[in-house]
């Protein structure tokens, strides 16, 4: 049953309206069969898959707002396409992009942390 939740979340990622329709049908089917108690397990699984998708979704972060366009272009060249860049001042300078478990980090913070670790090792 947990697989239904995962599949619904996967479908929702591509086509939300189809996923909604499928969810309606699923609830009706469970009601007809008297198995509505399975719904909590399906919900748990859908939430888990949704969280997984969010954590693996494309994100581009920049240290300064003026770097956004260049960062989006550079990220796209590295294979990570995001709609917009988020400003994250902790990066200091540069940008970083993340999608589907891949990370491209060209931020000043990363370089400084690496430098610090190498020096103090």
């Amino acid at each position, binding site marked *: 049953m947990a697989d239904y939740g995962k599949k619904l979340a996967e479908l929702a990622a591509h086509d939300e309206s189809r996923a909604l329709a499928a969810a309606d049908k699923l609830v009706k089917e469970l009601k007809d069969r008297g198995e509505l108690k399975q719904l909590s397990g399906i919900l748990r699984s859908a939430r*888990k898959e949704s969280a*997984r998708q969010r*954590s*693996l979704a494309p994100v581009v972060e920049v240290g300064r707002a003026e770097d956004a366009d260049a960062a989006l272009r550079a990220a796209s060249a*590295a294979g990570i396409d995001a709609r917009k860049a988020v400003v994250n001042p902790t990066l200091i300078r*540069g940008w970083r992009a993340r999608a589907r*478990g891949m*990370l491209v980090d060209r931020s000043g913070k*990363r370089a400084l942390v690496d430098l*610090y670790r190498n020096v103090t090792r």
Partner: protein
Amino acid sequence: MESIIKKLEEEIAAFAPETKSEETGIVRATGDGIAEIDGLAGAVMTEMVLFDPSFDRSLEDALKDPEPVYGLVLNLEEDGTRAVVLGDSSKVYEGMLVRRMGRLLSIPVGDEMVGRVVNPLGEPVDGKGPIKGVKDTPIEREAYGVIDRAPVNVPLHTGIKAVDAMIPIGRGQRELIIGDRGTGKTAVAIDTILNQKSEPKESRPTCIYVAIGQKESKTAKLVAELAEKGAMEYTIVVTAPASSPAALQFLAPFAGAAIGEHFMNQGKDALVVYDDLSKQAVAYRQMSLLLRRPPGREAYPGDIFYLHSRLLERAAKLSKEKGGGSLTALPIIETQENDVSAYIPTNVISITDGQIFLESNLFNQGQRPAINVGISVSRVGSSAQTKAMKKVSGKIKLGLAQFRELEAFMQFSSDLDADTKRQIDDGRRMTEVLKQGRGEPLPFEMEAAVIFAATNGFFDSFPPERVNEIEKKLQDFLLREGRGELDAIKQSKEIREGTEESLKEKLARFVAANA
């Protein structure tokens, strides 16, 4: 000053860090030292990962806590991975970035580790500073194959008369030490380490004592004892105390094996004591249950046998082509109520090349070491036994086994015939001769001389209850007046005719003087 500030500002403005593309994951859930990770699709089993707290913190906060937390990938699943946290798991939080390290779990290993106390990750914990000259070595590796091995034919003397005479251990052998708690298992292992001091430096094995799930006070006491008796000069202690995470207790024996192999691969001999594998099995069971692997017998995972077999299979005597080094393993298993037929004991008994079984009844009767000769065996060690020891110890085991059978009749001793009575008395005398205190290992030549005296009837004129005292006097006597004979046995590793005659003559003198 202004110019310096301006220059630094220019440097920062022109800063263009290099592109770093890497595979990462995000911690989905964490608890009990296990982290569920989304992503890391390309990770491989036993690969190291780094939990990176700097990712979502400011630079200042990231540098406040520079100690990295590592993890070990142990489950590869359809939608993520599960890893055990090697260190403080409270530092791992949901949403934390996890980086692949692209290498299997490795620890720094090198000659400089001798004399040090390290944790299973190879980090020093003795407060003596960093260890230099070390090289990262994977802690898991495939054991040497048949072609690379040579037969076990060099003895590893424990300094314990009962063991060296009846259950001899060879270099490259795996000999299990098994028994209930408080029966002297650790004492046998520690005495073996202490006894290596009597070996010549060039052939002395490097000893590695792996303490798994032990009280830190016990380990500290052992280290102090080893240091006091000069054994830390050739010993490394790997400690994963009871307070350490289950993952480290599971890894400790593998770390010990990796360190031992470092010396073996250089053509040297090494001895590794795993104290004890029952606790490692418990730690592995805990981890496996938390990783949601299906439980089997006694809730241990299905691969618990493989866990111990792949570890102990790494003990080897290498062929000349491979340098001729050896790694001897002395695993320890704790039994409950002397039950050797429980799951883990039977597994390890079947993997090893023999076992030294210590019994609580014998221990309580004052027999130290409390070895049950009947069910203790060494399957390969006899071919490594020296000629001297073979000559003197030939019939001891059989005689003692017969004595144990007759022991039940001892209470009716007044009704026994003379032959049976003599057999019982001989057995009691031999039992007394084989008694040995903790921390008193004997050099091999002294063991051979004492057992020679016992098997040739030189103790027969003394009542069994005096034998122990007489044996100690004999040792002093031989050190004073039998130096030549002892040296001859040590050098030739056998008791030649001339040596035998002069030894007999001196023993007769000793008996006459003490009668």
